[in-house]
């Protein structure tokens, strides 16, 4: 890709369209962070494509001054696969929500991830259907009272990161709308990863599911209930960084390092290349509030280097050309056997 001639700013990535999310929606914060990291990628605007499905989050491409497609429900993944297969040089960003990605588009998502196209998936998780005005989503917790579940949801929810790890994700991360700094960092990491980068973003729907992630995002409770992952650093959290995670076999337990400083050396040290540990981390999915509850992790859970589908596809074509020579249409038309009528 060519270097950008003039330095672009976040403003250059905003369109002339009015942003039409509800006032106070978490999407605004994500849009702002995405627009602000774009100039730093060093990619010309015309080489960037945003593709979305249907849902509140899927309006995103209309607000990005890049190429964009607002497609149909759940299928942005499949459309992006075809685009990336044929235009590997483009920087492709997929914007989706919990309903779009995990319900109607669940099948395409897992296949996208196993194929490992080199693109970025930003899944805004608000645990609700917003655009259709308040039905429960595949990430809504059991018992969620919504318009379609007046007696509480009986569906067991998906754990999105556990799901993508099950599909052999090569990049799985989580961040939140209320932490712009962390968001930026994760978005940059996602962009730099070679493969399908899956980023779950906790996003507040202040109209239909206000406060779903409050306990993780509000100052008063954030430190006690969240765990920010850093490569090579021990897993420490708590109001005064007094708690840590230790692995007992495959079982993570919370220990108090303020009271037992000698345990510091026994804490789990984050290694984002360790698939087994990453899988355990995705299972840090407790509903907060009880004693010994595991904190909710944020950051990059897992990274792996694996070939991308579009490269293997191009490679096969190059190999075929080497082996058989560039296709000769006349030979193809004639086939293997011909005869002549005089």
């Amino acid at each position, binding site marked *: 890709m060519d270097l950008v001639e003039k330095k672009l700013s976040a403003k250059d990535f905003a*369109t002339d369209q009015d942003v039409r999310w509800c006032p106070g929606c978490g999407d605004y914060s994500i849009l702002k962070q995405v627009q602000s990291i774009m100039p730093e990628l060093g990619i010309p605007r*015309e080489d*960037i*494509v945003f593709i979305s499905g249907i849902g509140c989050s899927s309006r995103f491409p209309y607000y990005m001054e890049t190429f*964009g497609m607002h497609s149909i429900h759940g299928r942005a*993944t*499949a459309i992006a696969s075809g*685009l990336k297969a044929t235009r590997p040089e483009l920087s492709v960003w997929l914007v989706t929500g919990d309903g779009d990605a995990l319900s109607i588009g669940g*099948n395409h998502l897992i296949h996208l991830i196993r194929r490992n196209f080199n693109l970025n998936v930003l899944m805004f998780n608000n645990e609700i259907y917003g655009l259709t005005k308040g039905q429960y989503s595949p990430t809504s917790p059991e018992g969620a009272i919504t318009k379609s579940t007046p007696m509480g949801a009986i569906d067991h929810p998906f754990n999105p990161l556990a799901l993508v790890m099950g599909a052999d994700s090569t990049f799985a991360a989580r961040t939140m709308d209320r932490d712009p700094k962390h968001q930026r960092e994760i978005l940059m990491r996602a962009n730099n990863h070679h493969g399908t980068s899956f980023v779950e973003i906790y996003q507040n729907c202040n109209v239909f599911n206000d406060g779903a992630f409050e306990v993780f995002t509000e100052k008063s409770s954030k430190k006690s209930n969240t765990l920010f992952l850093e490569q090579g650093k021990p897993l420490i959290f708590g109001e005064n960084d007094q708690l840590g995670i230790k692995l007992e076999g495959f079982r993570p337990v919370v220990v108090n390092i303020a009271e037992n400083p000698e345990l510091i050396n026994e804490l789990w040290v984050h290694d984002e290349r360790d698939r087994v540990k990453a899988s355990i981390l995705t299972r840090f999915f407790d509903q907060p509030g009880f004693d010994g509850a595991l904190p909710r992790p944020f950051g990059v859970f897992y990274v792996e280097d694996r070939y991308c589908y579009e490269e293997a596809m191009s490679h096969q074509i190059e190999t075929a050309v080497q082996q058989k020579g560039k296709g000769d249409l006349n030979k193809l038309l004639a086939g293997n056997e011909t*005869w002549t009528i005089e």
Partner: protein
Amino acid sequence: MNNSPVLEEKQSVTILFAGDSGDGIQLTGSQFTNTAALLGNDISTFPNFPAEIRAPQGTLAGVSGFQLHFGSIEINTPGDNCDVLVVMNAAALKANLKQLKPGGTIIANTDGFDSKNLKLAKIDEANNPLKNNSLSQYKVIEVDVTKMTRECLKDSGLGTKEMDRSKNMYVLGLIYWIYNRDMEVSRNFIKEKFKKRPDLIEANIKTMEAGYNFGETSETFNARYEVKRAKQEPGVYRNIMGNQATAIGLVAAANQSGLNLFYGTYPITPASDILHELSKHKNFGVKTFQAEDEIAAICSAIGASFGGSLGVTASSGPGIALKTEAIGLATMLEIPLVIVNVQRGGPSTGLPTKTEQADLLQAVYGRNGECPVPVVSACSPSDCFDMVFEACRIAVEHMTPVFFLSDGYIANGSEPWKFPNAENLPSFKPNFAKARTDEEAAAVKFLPYKRDEKLVREWAIPGTKNLEHRIGGIEKENETGNISYDPDNHELMVKIRQAKVDTIADFIPLQELDNSANEANTLVLAWGSTYGSIRTAVRELIAEGYPVAHAHVRYMNPFPKNLGELMAKYKNVIIPEINNGQLIRLLRDKYLVEAIPFNKIKGMPFSVEEIKNKVIEVIGN
């Protein structure tokens, strides 16, 4: 030899090979086809196989057939009835005897008529057709193929199971002898197919030669037949199957437009062979993508088209149903996309391996909202090449999804094809929007939905400087493409999209007659794979003095501009279709024409006889 059989000349012969789906029937048939074609016969073939890969052996459900019609005259159909019926077992005879002409020849593998096989075919042992005289009106030639094959291969070192796999070669050799054919084509084929197994090369060739020699020495036969070269237009020919022609047509269209071909699909009978064929041609830059489902298949093709490739997806009826929403998206986006539907019997799973023309209304109307999509159809195996090429041309030149309809009959059928030279193929150019300088971009806003006189927009693909824009499935404002819920704008856009498709009528050929009597008052108007039988039927009727004409429609939406005018010239318009009446509805709707339906919905094509009888009945009234 004293009793050497006489050589009789025949104008055309139809052979039906039938046996278990595991008997290698399709291979036997296609080998004889290739040999006949190379000798210069005109040919038409039709395989007929069960949906199960290996249905229970010996049962009626497991019977697989391959019908081949070859001749020294013009051949348009695989033949209504056969002259020779080759049966590997009792079930194959029971299932196909009604196809055999009176006085026809049966070549029966006697081993397939033992008590076990009779039981499987639900025939009482006392009623063994080879023994109870019920076949007296036919010429029956009994050969114990299994025994002969095993005898011939007893020193080969192969196991019984492997030896028995060569049975079809014995039959092939025998048929070669009867029709006085050289075995060279099949020898070469066997050598190529088993190049890693020299023992199997030897076994198969030896068995085939044994079959040939049996004809020569057994004195069972008192006649051999000769079918001379057909008087075909001079030129170079090959044999082609419909799905193969579709695949090659797609590669050719990509080549002639300078576009890269992307083929997103999901396996389904009878469309999968297009994928198999295309995946062999990666050296043409063809990208084939076997998606996780039908929806992903079409969506990946939409993504590829958005990026500037020639996006193509294919399926059969049930798969097309799943793609419907995405076809609507492509219509809204106004990007090129070709949707291949190799039709089969429906609805739902229907008759996966049988043919039907019942997806025409689905193609023309089957979407939510006002969603016009151009539709073209092929009328023969080789016509798949021409018409899928046309589908690509229309898609690219008019920036629209286009349906190409084929069906199981022509997809799996084959015929000789006087194939074109690449240099003589038409070319067409994608109208890519050009990059703009910053100054140009600042001066004039880029309008992604600005149209030319054909109402076609430019193809503005990612990577083109200063053309950044957003498109989507939501109704868009005229020209800017921005979201618009304005009532007047929506009506305007619906009308524009319709007018854009209607305008295509100016860029397709006028409807021509295929054939006509001098003062015809009756027109047989049809579409798709019924072409061969109707062509033959109408030709024969004209020769017999009936005032009849034939026109075959290939552009289904929009119709050729003169179609209404053409129909108006005739007192009777008969519309034969392999469905419950679909083209006739479109024609009545558009032209208020009083046409006469003629429908068959049996998963089988029309016979020439059926068409002739219907025409005679109509003219007689």
